[in-house]
């Protein structure tokens, strides 16, 4: 039996990776911003609420409080940017391909999705941290099951590729909303926390929180698995493996390589100076990679509609 995956199945798996990573990333971001707003006694929290929506690239009514923005990003079933929406999409995609993923993986994702409404209700009384930590733990469970149960075949490779692209995208989005020349230390700490990298950063920098080093850490640390560089490198490895030793030109691989090299070989000063442009390019690169992967591996003709006697 061949190791190849059906194009449709590969596409679903890729999106399962993206959506699970997105749900986890969103949970981290919400957790930090809710906590931050409490500490700063920003009762209205409109500033923080609007930042949240901006990170996700969602339209902003201008009056959204933090509470409303949090609820929307946590529970809106119709939006693929909310935790509930992303997990529903992950679950729907997994359902269609459940025959190729470990049973535990499917059950975990299915049970998580089914438990969300109750968790949110419980969170209404005890605060959203309960819901958010449930989501983080469950997502970690999915990643763990994928890493310990799946063969490193194309199923795992496309899943991981999706995760890496999404992870890079989440980091880039977060950095793009921070004004690095006027940010306070507390803002940097919040940024590090919402990328899940606060403590590793502290150990690396011996406790010094400073914009240039934070930027360097989140964009191109080699060891921190959530940095853009580490994610892009893993994505490259996945694409190499998927391409399987064929020396065929691969647009997606080239685009990732270029984006990774730009981060890797930019002088620290120039990275900070032209940050906006670089982040913009990074985000564009991620969508182009996604398109290139789709074009090469997933694209298929629409179902053939046959009309008898039609045309020649």
């Amino acid at each position: 039996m061949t190791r190849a995956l059906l194009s449709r199945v590969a596409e679903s798996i890729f999106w399962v990776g993206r959506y699970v990573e997105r749900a986890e990333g969103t949970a981290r971001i919400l957790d930090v911003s809710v906590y931050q707003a409490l500490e700063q006694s920003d009762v209205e929290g409109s500033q923080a609420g609007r930042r949240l929506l901006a990170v996700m690239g969602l339209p902003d009514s201008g009056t959204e409080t933090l509470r409303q923005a949090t609820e929307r990003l946590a529970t809106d079933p119709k939006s693929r940017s909310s935790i509930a929406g992303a997990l529903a999409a992950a679950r729907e995609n997994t359902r269609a391909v459940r025959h190729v993923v470990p049973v535990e993986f499917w059950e975990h994702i299915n049970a998580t999705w089914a438990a969300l409404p109750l968790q949110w209700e419980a969170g209404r009384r005890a605060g959203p941290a309960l819901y958010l930590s449930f989501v983080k733990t469950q997502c970690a469970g999915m990643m763990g099951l994928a890493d310990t149960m799946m063969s490193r075949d194309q199923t795992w490779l496309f899943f991981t590729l999706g995760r890496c692209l999404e992870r890079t995208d989440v980091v880039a989005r977060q950095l793009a909303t921070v004004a690095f020349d006027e940010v306070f230390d507390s803002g940097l700490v919040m940024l590090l926390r919402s990328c899940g990298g606060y403590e590793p950063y502290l150990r690396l920098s011996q406790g010094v929180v400073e914009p240039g080093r934070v930027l360097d850490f989140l964009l191109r640390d080699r060891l921190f698995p959530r940095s853009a560089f580490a994610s892009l490198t893993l994505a490259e490895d996945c694409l190499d493996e998927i391409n399987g030793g064929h020396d065929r030109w691969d647009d997606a691989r080239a685009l990732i390589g270029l984006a990774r090299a730009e981060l890797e070989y930019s002088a620290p000063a120039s990275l900070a100076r032209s940050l906006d442009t670089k982040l913009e390019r990074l985000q564009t690169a991620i969508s182009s990679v996604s398109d290139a992967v789709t074009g090469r591996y997933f694209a298929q003709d629409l179902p053939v509609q046959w009309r008898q006697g039609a045309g020649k």
Partner: protein
Amino acid sequence: MGDLFDGYGESAHGLSEVAFDEMVGGGGVARLPYAGVATSLAQMGPDDVSSRASRLARAFMDQGVTFDLDGEERPFPLDVVPRIFTADEWTQVSDGVAQRVRALEKFLADVYGSARIVSDGLVPHELVTSSPGFVRAAHGYTPPNGVRIHVAGIDVVRDEAGEFRVLEDNLRSPSGVSYVLANRAAIARVLPELFWGQPVQMVNDYPARLINALRCAAPASVQDPTVVVLTPGVHNSAFYEHALLARLMGVHLVEGRDLVCHGTDVFLRTTEGEVPVHVIYRRVDDDYLDPLQFRPESLVGCPGIVNAARAGRVTIANALGNGVADDKLVYTYVPSMIRYYLGEDPILQNVETMHLVDAGIRARALARRDELVFKRVDGSGGKGLVIGAKATGRELDTLAHEVEADPRRWIAQRLVALSTSPTWVDEAMVRRHVDLRPFAVNDGEDVWVLPGGLTRVALDEGGLVVNSSQGGGSKDTWVTGGGPPGPVLPPRQMTAPAAARPQDVGPLEEEELGVQQQQQQQQQERLLR
């Protein structure tokens, strides 16, 4: 038997009272195979049984053991009480089912070939050609290993006397086997004590048997065939089953849009380009399989695969045109087919059935329409089924109209009071009607019958329709004793070999820690002095 079963015998009314009960025999005593299970459940008591029932339901929700109804995923309720057969009872069912499948295989080969049974006058010519399941494109086609019925689901019920009778044959794409596997796994986890002290024949051989039969059916020229499961998609009511079988066989689960035909070859669209396919276990109806041959608007099939199958380049399983053999009017001829093709007496009897094409019989049947059961000859899943005793006068008049308009499409049967079995409904143990769908797999050498099959139970009081789409549930189905033992692992030494290495441990073993603590304490004491 304790208070759990108090009042069980009286929980049936009307028709259900005359039904054979699977568990309780004459005198209100549990039949032997049920004794252990009844005792275990009685010992648990109602509260524990109730909590196990919720755990079963919860496990099925988490595992996504569902069927789709009107676009909504629903769990398929699993009852806490298994349905149990003795090895002897099962031998009769299993031999009867296998015999039927062998005869029906010969019938299909015959009607799509020289039609000897017609020229010999046993089956009328019009009966075959007027069947909605007769497919002209299948004429003259010979499958590679002679098998057309790779999988059969032969519905068997127990009448008032406890005799097994075949209710209908399903030879197109019978579904439900996934629930047999899921039910067993769930009951074993949630109610392990029910199994104590009695061997139950295992069911998880099924996927291995199926993939073997499908590989055997590949075109002769192919050494290592690629087998796929073809599903209409995630919204099909049996999608759970399609996915489960694909996973347990390790094959691709494909939709029509994943397949493409070039000439008479069929390919899969994969991440590594197009890969040839040799056997398609399709769970798509004939009508939707190939828009070139059948319904041109079908989007769930693949244009050209019927031609590819006729050219012998790919095998479609089950074969095209099997519907002619599970037509409910053809069903009435199966006992004579068994005598004609196999020279054997039928092991399982049919339910008494009336043909409605003859005007005299039709008039007599319609006169008794409030007590008979009417079925569409090509109906399945409880569709096109009218139970006279439960229908309104208006429904019966509509029925009479439809039968008169097209008598070939209908049959009438005696209403059988299906056997009853103890079932946990609304916190009480009550009698509910059950049927049975045994599954048979034909690999060309042998017809193998999965021990047990799917027991469906009508959860409404007095209900006789067990289909999942009409409020039915299911039961784990056991064949106890007899049969081949489960797979045996190579004998294992009970004591570890002498050279076994102890497991590695990290630093700071407890004693070491103790010494260190002592020293730390001594240091403190010295300081304090």
